[in-house]
Structure formats: C-alpha cells, structure tokens
C-alpha cells in the first residue's frame, strides 16, 4: 500500500519534471529564435520562400473559410435577430465578431492544421534522416536555418491571412444580407465601417501574430525533437496539430480578455 503510494508519487513527480523540462525547452527555443533573429547571418531568401509557401499557399483555404464564416454567421444572426426586429444590427454584429474573434481564430486553427503539421513533418523527417545533424555539423544553426524563416514567415503571413479572411467574410455577409434580408450593400458597408474601430482590427491582427508564434514554435520544437523514424514523424504531426489548436483556443480567451480591458 505504502509502496503503491510512493510509486504514484514518484511517477507524478517525474511527469511534473518532464513538463517543466518541456516548458523550459519551448521557452528556450522561443528566446533563441528572437535573439538570433536580430543577429547575422540573415536568411532573407529562405524567409521569402517560406512566406510564399506558408502564406501565399494558404490563401485559397483562407478565402474558403472566410467566405463560409461570413455566409453562415450572417444567416444565423439574421434569422435570430429578425425574431426581435433587429435585422439592421446584423452587419454590426457580424463585422465585429469577424474582426475581433472569428477571422483570426478560425484562420489560425486552419493554418495550425495545414502549416503546423507541414512544418513538424518536414523538420521531423529532416531530424530522423540526420539532416538536422548535418546542418549543425556543417557549422550552421538549425534555429537560424529552419526555425527563424518559418517563425517570421507565419508571424507576417497569418495576420494578413486573417485580414483576408475578414474581408472575404464581410463580402459573404453582404451577399446574404442583400439576398435574404434586403439590406443594401451601401448601408451594410456603412454599418461595418462605422462599427469596427481601429482597435478591433488591431485586436484581430495581434492575436493572429501570437497564434502564429505558438504554431511555429511548437511545430519546430517537436520537429527538432522527433525520434523513432517515420512513426515518430506521424506522432509529431498529430501532436502539433492537437496541441497548437488547444493552445490557440485557450490563449484566445486570455488575449480577448486582455484586449477588452485595455481597449
């Protein structure tokens, strides 16, 4: 009985130790990424390549999610508010939700799936085939060569993708308002631009940048620590998508709370 309790205690202690090591290593990778970003050598061509791959490559999926969000939200809010005679509030509600919450959140979740898994799989595969070791053995840093270009590419791209998602969502909402609720585009746009203020846009953009950081740091960390061959790559990919998505959702609540207080 006592032994069982002691064993349980030891196991819990070991898990706690592993957790703190993990937090420490993630933090260390983040700090190193920021530190190395401002010292030579810079890899602009790799950054551009990643922006093209990660950012431009995600535009079509962003347009689809933005349009769907705009259409569905407008339809649901429209019919919901119509019961209380509040149809005219639909543009304001939809645009505010899209700018502050839905566009950055859903775009980030989608990008976490598409880009996070891609980064983790690519770096993980490089790790198990000793390519990461080769980068180190050739006197270069995996953080500079692999992490920094991906980190900044997503930190730059994700807010832009969120903005695109917002814009397309607004267009989708306009379409539904015109066709279902007889709200003319002029009035719709007037309400959108008079409701959504600068800080609402900023809230969405800053959130997207933070989500981008979470996605890349976790994906790169897990990729650089992938073991056990191709099986390990599969495990890494799944872990990154699940963990990044959960963290995005949790972080979203706290950032929203902070922004509501300061703005």
């Amino acid at each position, binding site marked *: 009985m006592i032994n069982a309790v002691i064993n349980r205690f030891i196991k819990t202690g070991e898990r706690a130790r592993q957790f703190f090591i993990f937090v420490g290593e993630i933090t260390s990778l983040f700090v190193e990424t920021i530190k190395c970003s401002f010292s030579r050598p810079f890899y602009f061509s790799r950054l551009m390549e990643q922006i093209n791959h990660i950012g431009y490559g995600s535009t079509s999926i962003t347009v689809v999610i933005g349009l769907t969000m705009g259409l569905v939200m407008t339809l649901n809010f429209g019919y919901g508010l119509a019961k209380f005679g509040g149809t005219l509030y639909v543009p304001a509600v939809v645009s505010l939700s899209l700018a502050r919450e839905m566009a950055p959140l859903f775009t980030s979740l989608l990008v976490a799936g598409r880009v996070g898994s891609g980064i983790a799989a690519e770096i993980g595969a490089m790790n198990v085939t000793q390519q990461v070791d080769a980068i*180190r*053995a*050739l006197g270069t840093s995996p953080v500079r060569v692999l992490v920094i270009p991906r980190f900044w590419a997503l930190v730059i791209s994700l807010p832009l993708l969120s903005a695109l998602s917002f814009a397309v969502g607004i267009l989708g909402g306009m379409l539904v308002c015109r066709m279902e609720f007889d709200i003319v585009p002029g009035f719709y746009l007037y309400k959108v631009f008079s409701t959504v203020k600068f800080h609402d846009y900023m809230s969405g953009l800053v959130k997207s940048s933070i989500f981008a950081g979470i996605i890349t740091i976790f994906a790169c960390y897990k990729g650089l620590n992938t073991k056990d061959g191709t099986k390990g790559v599969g495990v890494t990919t799944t872990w990154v998508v699940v963990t990044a998505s959960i963290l995005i959702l949790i972080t979203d609540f706290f950032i929203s709370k902070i922004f509501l207080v300061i703005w």
Partner: protein
Amino acid sequence: MMMDKEVLLEVKNIHKAFGKNKVHQGVSFTLHKGESLGLLGGSGTGKSVLLRSIIGLERIDQGQIIFKGERIDQLPENKLTPYRIRISYSFQSGALFDSINVFENIAYPLFEHTKFSYAQIKDKVCEMLKLIDLQGKEDLMPSDLSGGMQKRVGMARAMILNPEIVLYDEPTAGLDPSNTLNVVSLMQKLKEKGLASIFVTHDIPSAIMLCDRIIVLHEGKIIFNDTPHNFQNSEDPIVRKFILSSKDEL
C-alpha cells in the same frame, strides 16, 4: 614516424552513457597531422557516438576533447562553428538535404562560411564533382542518386571547405564492391592530399588499406591501438575474434 608530426586531436579519458548504457568508459587516443585512424568494433560499441562527440553533436559526460591545444568539448553550440569548419563529418547515410540538388548540397558550406562569388563557388563545386567522379550530376536531386553516389556527395560536402580532419562514419557500409572501391579510392586521394581522418568501419580490408593506425573499441574501452600490420597479427583473443567474424561475414 607519425608520432613526430603535430598532434591535431586528443581524446582524453572520455566517458559517455545513455541512461544505464555506458558507451565509453575512459577512451583516449591522439590523431596526428595527415594520419588516418581506423576505428573498428562491433555494432553498438559507440564508434559513431565517438565521432559525434568529437564534433559536438553529442556531449560527453567526462573527459576532454582537445583540438590543436584548445579544449572543445565544453564549448557551447554557437562557439563550435569554427571547429566544425576545420573538423568535418561525413555521415553514414550521406545526410544530404533532400529539398535541394547536388550542386546546392555541396555548395552549402561555401554559401554559409565564405564570401566567394557565385562563379567561384560553381568552380569549386565542379572541381569537387570531378574529384568524386560525378561530373554533370549537379542538377540531380539526392533522391535521384544511388546510395554510393549519395555517400560521395556527402563526402564532397564535408570536404569542400578544406578541413584539417575528416570523420568518416561507415562510408562503405551497404555498398556493392564497385561503389566501395569508388569511395575507398576517393578517401585515398584525400589522404594523399594530407588530410587527417578517423574512419569508422566494419570493412577491415578497406581499413587496413587506408589507415596508418587501427583502434578497436570493445565494451566502452580501447583494447587495441597499433598499426594495421600488428592488427592483422594480433594475438589478442577479442581482436582475433573480430577479424575472424569479419572474414565470415565476407
């Protein structure tokens, strides 16, 4: 005769363990300028770990690794760069970057560590491709190359910055006799240029042909450190068993 030459690398009493598995238990040896050292031993005796430790890819638990009088085993990752240029590592698998072609793979260290123009880099890569007998293959991707070709490209990449020591990790493993001959003759050419090397292998004939000295690792310790001639005539039962088992494999 080698003893008169400058000592490039000293490995002093190193210990390394992975959990309870003690891989090295007091390994010591020196490498002189222009010397080729064969590192033999059964599978899992820590030959590759030793090479990885020398270049800092693995951290040793105890002991010292000294390159030209400077202790390098305690240096942080970012301070190891100058040593990784002077001590290069040729991976067992080649470890080529699979998203870039042969030219870009070989040129990678030049782009990273030199200020050569593109034309100069191109010339150097062409020269290296000629040396490894792969002229005209610069546009191929690593996946288009055979195992032997990949190893040779990996060796060329390790060699392009003119290092002082090359660490070969089983360069002939898994190759057919013809490819083995290609790789061994490439190593011979590099040796003739005065390059010091440590050659980890199970391929005893190649080690005897190429090396000035042979070291045998067994249970984390060096049990033999002498010339290839004395290695072949060794009376040590473990060395004899190792030689005989390798003959059986052949």
